């Protein structure tokens, strides 16, 4: 774990945002396991701008779900979360999320920072009507239930659901897409400022994914939400996200605006990821899978954790961990020593600077 110390110093240097709603510093999650310490989130630092849509992209097992749980201090049990997460509600105060008392944390969750989980199908109590979930949530947070249910109905119809029918249904009586939208409504019924979504569309078909994404966009505008959208599907989120952050081996390795990432990805992994992603514009024959496999959290390679798979790797990459550094612009940053050469060595298999081509109109 020698990599750990070097990245610590680098992590405080993060792209500036004007009005951060969340500041994450050195967030780290580890599990003590028989075969060693499993570090599933490794010194992630990032600022989240009020009102933005931040897409966090990574393969499964890259630590992105851990980052989502960390934002609500909800890492599953034997996992230990450290670092600093500061929440700015917008009234000038700031909240140290990881230092909160149990009751304060209970209130922060869902009232300020809410979350939609992977797999809506399993997020509802199967023996309780959907409406009951809304009511009990409002009650648990001492909200006015009548007003809250009114809001719930409005939310549901904003999401193109029939409010009365959905509220009066048991979860299994709704389709996957309906459950997912009902879950989104449930997650914002307490009017949070931040909504963290962990692969919210993973189990849905493409059409439903697209329609949920466009609904999210409307919802975000209407309710002034900051969205953190975690996915493995880069092209899907690229349309919605203002900025993209790419994770590899439990670390952030690149961050920038969506256009910067899609057009001028600086990190070799990001470029390979883009080339490996199915896209409406790219014939399947052009797709290139990334060679090698994702690292084991117990045994992350030393130096740059991507070096075993990186075509640009040299001795420096093996011995030292690259810090986050500005690339083409000050706020487009990547953790790579040789980012200048990446475009040449890993050319895009299609021209994708214009993201609006894949619009769902």
């Amino acid at each position: 774990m020698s990599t750990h110390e070097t990245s610590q110093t680098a992590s405080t240097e993060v792209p500036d945002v004007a009005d951060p709603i969340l500041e994450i510093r050195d967030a780290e999650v580890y599990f003590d396991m028989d075969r060693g310490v499993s570090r599933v989130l490794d010194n992630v630092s990032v600022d989240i701008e009020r009102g933005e849509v931040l897409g966090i992209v990574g393969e499964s097992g890259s630590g992105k779900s851990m980052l989502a749980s960390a934002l609500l201090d909800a890492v599953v049990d034997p996992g230990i979360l450290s670092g600093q997460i500061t929440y700015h509600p917008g009234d000038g105060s700031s909240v140290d999320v990881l230092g909160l008392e149990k009751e304060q944390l209970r209130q922060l969750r869902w009232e300020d920072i809410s979350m939609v989980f992977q797999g809506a199908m399993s997020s509802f109590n199967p023996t309780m009507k959907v409406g009951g979930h809304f009511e009990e949530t409002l009650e648990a947070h001492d909200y006015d239930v009548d007003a809250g249910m009114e809001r719930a109905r409005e939310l549901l119809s904003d999401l193109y659901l029939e409010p009365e029918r959905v509220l009066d249904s048991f979860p299994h009586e709704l389709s996957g897409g309906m459950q997912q939208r009902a879950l989104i409504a449930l997650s914002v019924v307490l009017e949070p400022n931040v909504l963290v979504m962990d692969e919210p569309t993973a189990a849905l078909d493409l059409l439903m994914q697209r329609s949920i994404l466009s609904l999210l966009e409307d919802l975000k505008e209407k309710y002034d939400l900051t969205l953190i959208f975690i996915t493995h599907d880069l092209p899907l989120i690229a349309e919605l996200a203002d900025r993209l952050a790419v994770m590899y081996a439990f670390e952030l390795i690149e961050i920038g605006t969506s256009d910067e990432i899609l057009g001028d990805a600086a990190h070799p992994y990001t470029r390979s990821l883009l080339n490996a992603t199915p896209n409406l514009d790219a014939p399947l024959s052009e797709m290139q899978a990334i060679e090698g496999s994702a690292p084991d959290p117990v045994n992350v390679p030393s130096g740059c954790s991507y070096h075993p798979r990186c075509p640009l790797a040299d001795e420096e990459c093996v011995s030292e961990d690259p810090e986050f550094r500005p690339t083409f612009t000050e706020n487009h940053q990547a953790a790579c020593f040789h980012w200048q050469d990446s475009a040449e060595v890993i050319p895009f298999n299609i021209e994708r600077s214009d993201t609006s081509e894949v619009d769902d109109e």
Partner: protein
Amino acid sequence: MNWFIKRIGQGLFTIFAVASLTFVLIRTMPGSPAQQLAADIRQNQPSLSARQINVMVEQRIGVDPDQPMHEAYMNYMLNLAQGNLGESVNYQEPVADIILRSLPWTAFVMSVSLLFVFIFGIGLGAIMAYREGSKFDVGSSIIAIFLSSVPYYVAAVVMIYVLALELSLFPLSGRYPRGVEPGFTLEFFTGALHHAVLPAASFIVTTWGGFALGMRGNSIQVLGNDYIRVAKLRGLSDRRIALRYVGRNAILPMWTSFLITVGFMFGASIILEEIFTYRGIGYYMFDSIENRDYPVMMGTFLVITVSVVIAVLVADITYGKLDPRVESGGGDESY
């Protein structure tokens, strides 16, 4: 509604089939009870004519040995439909009376047993699940496994020996204290309860473990579900999560086995009531087997079957109501 009717129809058919089977058994058993009864009567009252004897046999067990099979069957079923179960050879009284007298006692012991099995099983199972892996969990699991592998009649004998013979804490046998008039008096009620403790305990001790282990497993499985995690994040109280989320979803799958246990207990009551000389329906059934009292045997057998059929039917019908995920078999939502 269709499903409901269909299900009840199935139940009725089962009862009908059992009744018919009983008839066939009685007619064809080696040393046919009907013939045996006829022989008995002939021996005791040699003066009677064959015709008179047959009439008497029919009165007793609803089967006239000389009637052609189909006619006899019709007769027997018609009698049954009117609640006429024949007359006991041994006690010289209608079988229906014996059953009416004894069934409430069996039901009483069973309800007490079920109540405690439910409370202990579900309660301990849930606590074990919440403390999965703790000493309490491991210890209780071992005890539960051990006790559920003890046959109830062994438990009964051990309890009689220790609690009734050695310690004299509980009566050895009987349904209520001698000398107490049955009625709505406290004395009678506590006396009856005192007498029911050992038979009920034999059930409880050997049955709770299975429920506890089942509940433990279900609860652990439910606790691992995403919706529990989401419920916690939504800030629901631990109490609400325990009752409305874990409890409800873990107990539901046990409902059916709970009612099937009712059926099992009816079967077990035959031996248990004999051990405790507890005059419930099982006692009379055992007694009738010993004494070749075929009418009583048939009657009690029928009643036990009907009870089991009803228990399963209730399990089926109520489960659909309790668990919204179970659509009624026919797929309509009308009940």
